[in-house]
């Protein structure tokens, strides 16, 4: 390469290089422009809409109102209820499914007969269409009379509980944890399998206990994988719509409505574009804050535990 460019006169080579650079870039430009237009613009437009009073049912009602929508959103008791439900759903679902996922991945990381089959079976809940997952849990699992959960829990005196209407949050979280555990497991397993055997052997030689090894060696190694799982999990669980829509319709009343469901109601049943857009923006900011905080919180406790050992 240096020989080819070294012999050519410098300015001409640079001009040629630049032309070549543009010839390379030009075909990529439309894709980049399209990507920016379809991914970035809608959000900016949403921000723009959120500053307007605009209801599709009242044509000509569109006016610029500044931050009024945000004030209205934050004093809307239903929105605040939906927001706290969303935080609860997300935190419970991500933490529980991550804990179960880490546990399953640790077990799957050992050798035992039939490991491949077990692994395959464990992934299946993640592959079921979310709408089907919601229906499965709502009908055959949680039905108060003929549901399997009631049948299994009858010996414990919990046979006649109408889970979906009496404990809608628990029911929805259960279905979501069930759906997300395999995803967490797969990510953690990928992390475990990329771990060097020599580190573990060194730990064993040093006489570290299983728990010490887990907290001191495995967990720090898994950190980026767990972070990724928590991050992607939070993003998707915050956005859960189909499970709520199919299982509870946000009910009874608004007891189990989360933000996506509430925004859906306000947008497509109430046609209140301005306020819905403001809610969307709040959700975006909230998601980013919560996801970042959750990551910090989880790892501060683990990292301090690690420092305590070493």
């Amino acid at each position: 390469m240096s020989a080819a460019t070294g012999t050519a006169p410098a300015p001409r080579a640079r001009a040629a290089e630049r032309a070549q650079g543009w010839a390379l870039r030009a075909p990529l430009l439309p894709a980049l422009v399209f990507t920016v237009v379809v991914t970035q613009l809608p959000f900016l437009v949403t921000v723009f809409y959120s500053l307007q009073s605009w209801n599709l049912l009242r044509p000509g009602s569109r006016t610029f109102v500044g931050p009024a929508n945000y004030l209205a959103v934050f004093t809307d008791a239903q929105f605040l209820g939906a927001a706290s439900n969303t935080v609860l759903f997300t935190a419970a679902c991500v933490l529980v499914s991550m804990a179960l996922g880490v546990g399953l991945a640790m077990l799957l990381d050992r050798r035992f007969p039939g490991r491949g089959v077990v692994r395959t079976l464990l992934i299946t809940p993640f592959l079921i269409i979310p709408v089907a997952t919601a229906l499965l849990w709502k009908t055959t699992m949680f039905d108060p009379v003929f549901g399997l959960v009631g049948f299994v829990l009858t010996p414990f005196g919990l046979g006649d509980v109408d889970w979906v209407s009496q404990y809608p949050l628990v029911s929805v979280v259960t279905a979501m944890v069930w759906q997300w555990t395999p995803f967490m497991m797969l990510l953690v397993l990928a992390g475990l399998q990329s771990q060097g055997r020599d580190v573990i052997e060194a730990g064993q030689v040093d006489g570290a206990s299983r728990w010490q090894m887990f907290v001191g060696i495995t967990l720090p190694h898994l950190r980026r994988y767990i972070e990724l799982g928590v991050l992607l999990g939070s993003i998707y669980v915050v956005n859960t719509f189909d499970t709520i829509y199919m299982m509870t319709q946000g009910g009874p009343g608004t007891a189990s409505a989360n933000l996506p469901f509430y925004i859906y109601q306000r947008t497509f049943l109430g046609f209140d574009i301005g306020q819905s857009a403001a809610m969307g923006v709040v959700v975006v900011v909230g998601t980013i804050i919560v996801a970042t905080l959750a990551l910090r919180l989880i790892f501060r406790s683990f990292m301090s535990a690690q420092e305590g050992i070493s």
Partner: protein
Amino acid sequence: MSATTATRPAARRTDPLLRARRIAGRTGLYAAGLAVFAFSVFPVYWMIATAFKPGGELFAREPTLLPRNPTLDNFDQVVNGNVIPGVDFWQFLVNSLTVTLGSVAVGAVLALLAAIAVARFRFRLRTTLIVTLMVVQMVPVEALIISIFINFRQIQEGTGVELLGTLTGLVLAYSAVSLPITIMMLRGFVAAVPKELEEAAAIDGAGHWTVFWRILMPLVAPGLVAASIFAFITAWNEFIIALTFLGRSSETYTLPLTLSYYFGRYGTDWGSIMAASSLLTVPVMIFFLFVQRRMVSGLTMGAVKG
């Protein structure tokens, strides 16, 4: 650390109490593992088992593990039952496949080109673009569909191009939704291809297309497969955009939307609901089982090492 714990392995081997505790601990661990395994796997089995049960067995006080008289009636009801009058079940399948494959194809081409641009070329606002792509990845679909919905409506009113209630609009919306994450996944793969390799090929007289097809593509292909699987699953499962954009044009409904109609129409006929659920899920399962390793490596490579 080694100084304080060096004596412990010996102690552990001899102390019977500690050993008993370890065995108890291990038994507890395996029992817990088994319980979680049952929690994960049994509902899937139950879905499929229920799909084969005739009406009488569905509502038994004592549910049976296996269908006593397995039947295909439920599947027949799904395929030939006309859940939405006037539209064939196969039409929904074709709609779902069209939308899914369409958005995967559009998304793969765009994501690959955009990923190359982001990973390979320095340009003004490059970092800004990468950061905003990551942020957009976090934006809830609900926040985006408001403006996409309105823009589609305005385009429809302005130009007469039908985007709401059509599969074209759905393909566009789905590509837009999965683009940020697929670009981020692919960026890691493109960045991992050594630049020297491309330069060496260029010196050997390879043109840009040859470099692209012969050098870059084979190395990025696993990432492209992973991103496509991701986009496939997103589009195949997608519900809220289909629900809101397709409106009343039932001849364009996708399968998840159809499934929700099953519940509305046959709410108490669990056999049909579970048969429909199994029917929509099992193909995806089989497909995914073949490609799962690639998808995980794609996810972690793009994001963990990117």
